[in-house]
């Protein structure tokens, strides 16, 4: 379960002054649900998700992730979250196996449990072929699998994906999308951000249109269509964003 309450983040920029990257965002996402943040670049998606993953601290407001407050107990939140974004790269000089094991240990898992878990994930994601190859030598698709394994190693109840398919080819992107669906099936709470309409359309149970740091509209695809009287999600998105002063 993720409950976000008027989460805000302001940065001070030398040229532009105070920037409200995220401005009073509130939403809930239940287990077994995929909540999608749809927005253009700079809409505040990444900042919101980074705050939920406690990589950034909110300026005001807070959120409860898996029952823990992101401000009061960031370490407990991180222990229950799997965070995957285009910015979360891998250590090139570690092998796939070493990397996933490292993050297992960082999550406080005992060595025996780490090995067990790595074995099962590597089998599940069909990664045994390249388990002892260094991450720097892997293809983009293989790297993405390692990243998934890394985010999954501690079996988190909440998964946060920040534009996970950005810059990936069609086949690799499909693997990711399939994996996100799989997370829902297994009852995880999934927060997902993208600016790709088709992905959001296919995956998300609830879609939030975020722009200028604020959620402008929220609902199922059907609800959004009804509200705007348009069928195509892109048209829906443009109408909602442009309807703002």
């Amino acid at each position, binding site marked *: 379960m993720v409950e976000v309450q008027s989460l805000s983040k302001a940065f001070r920029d030398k040229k532009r002054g105070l920037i409200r990257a995220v401005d009073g965002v509130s939403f809930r996402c239940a287990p077994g649900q995929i909540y999608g943040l749809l927005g253009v670049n700079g809409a505040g998606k990444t900042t919101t998700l980074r705050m939920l993953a406690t*990589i950034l*601290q909110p300026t005001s407001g807070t959120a409860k992730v898996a029952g823990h407050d992101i401000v009061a107990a960031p370490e407990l939140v*991180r*222990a229950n979250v799997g965070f995957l*974004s285009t910015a*979360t*790269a891998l250590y090139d000089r570690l092998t796939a196996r070493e990397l996933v094991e490292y993050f297992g240990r*960082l*999550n406080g898992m005992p060595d025996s449990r780490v090995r067990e878990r790595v074995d099962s994930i590597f089998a599940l994601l069909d990664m045994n072929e390249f388990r002892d190859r260094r991450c720097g030598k892997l293809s983009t698709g293989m790297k993405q699998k390692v990243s998934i394994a890394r985010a999954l190693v501690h079996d988190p109840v909440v998964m946060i994906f920040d534009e996970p398919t950005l810059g990936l080819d069609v086949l690799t992107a499909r693997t990711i999308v399939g994996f996100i669906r799989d997370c829902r099936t297994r009852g995880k709470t999934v927060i997902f951000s993208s600016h790709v309409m088709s992905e959001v359309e296919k995956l998300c149970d609830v879609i939030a249109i975020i722009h200028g740091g604020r959620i402008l509209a929220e609902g199922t695809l059907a609800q959004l269509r009804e509200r705007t009287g348009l069928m195509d999600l892109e048209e829906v998105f443009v109408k909602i964003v442009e309807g703002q002063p």
Partner: protein
Amino acid sequence: MKLRDLGVVYRKELRDLLRDRRTIISMIVVPLLLMPLLSAGVGAVALHQVKEVMKETFSVMVLGGDDSPTTLAELRKLENLEFVAAAPDFKQQIADKKIRAAVEIPPGFDAALQNGPPATIKIYDYEGEFKSETATRTLRDFFSDWQDTTVAQRLAQRNLTSDFIHPFNVETTNVAPPEKVSGNLLGSLLPYIILITCLTGAIYPAVDLTAGEKERGTMETLLSSPVKRIDLALGKCLTVMTVSLTTMGLSLLSCGVSLLLVRTYGANMMRNNGLPLDLNPMALVGAFAIMVPMSLFFSSLLLSIGLFARSSKEANTYMQPLMIMMIFPAMISLLPGFELNEVRAVIPVVNVSLLCKEIFSGTYHWNYIAIVGISSCLYAGAALAAAVALFKRESVIFRA
């Protein structure tokens, strides 16, 4: 702070770094190979050059002296000088290195030697020019001997012994142990080498583990794990410190081995040049111990800078002025006359440089050792606290 987390981070960072060829080169290859090769190479070239100069004969011009045949005849016996005919532009010729020196013998010099007033021999040389100075030294030595001979003759004529002009003797006895004598020489150079290798050894890993991680996008991955930031900072710091101390230790070791080889195989040569090269192994251990907090200080400082930088390139730009800022205080051991006092014992870098110098010369002032040790630990602690604080600041980690 969790010790296990710290250990997990430390082991991973060290393994990661050791798989990087650049770390291996700067940590192991350079100290082990380059240092002795460089010192041996420079030494050999310098020695060769000195020998060449010694073999050479120098053109020297004699001005005047036509009425002093005795002096001239003695002067011409000098083997490594070649005398050329007098010319009025001798100063220019010295400057042009056509001749190396000129000696002016005043009129009636031979006669004045018998009973006249003291005459003045003038030598013209080009100061700072090695060959000119060598020629001049030969001339001065000759005239000094010539003066002694003359004095001896005068004393003999008056039936006096040399005691007449030597009413008493002055004798200096060296009470310093042999290591102290050599310590003064090595002790000035080694602290500088130690401090600089300790600093340079930390630069690459510190940048790689901070700005390098930002650049490669692994910082965000790392920060998404539940490990506390303090454990990440400490684990990284310990890694940098390990590399820094290894670089320093290996440099020290290779210096020691080079010295040992020079002493074994170049003993004659060294004795001739009066280079005592004894070094107490305990002094090396002591120096290493005092360098541990120093290494922590450097590591934390460099980590902070690396963390602040957006990229390795930016970090390396900051390293240049830092290096220059550190080289000068480290060099204080090379300057004569600087000794530890209450003030210098608390100035970072300067204190360790001077303390190492003392240790290498076999002096153990325990009160200074305590002051330097405690102040170094305090500086290291402050730098470490700063690095940990920076690690917790998102405006630094995500600096746009």
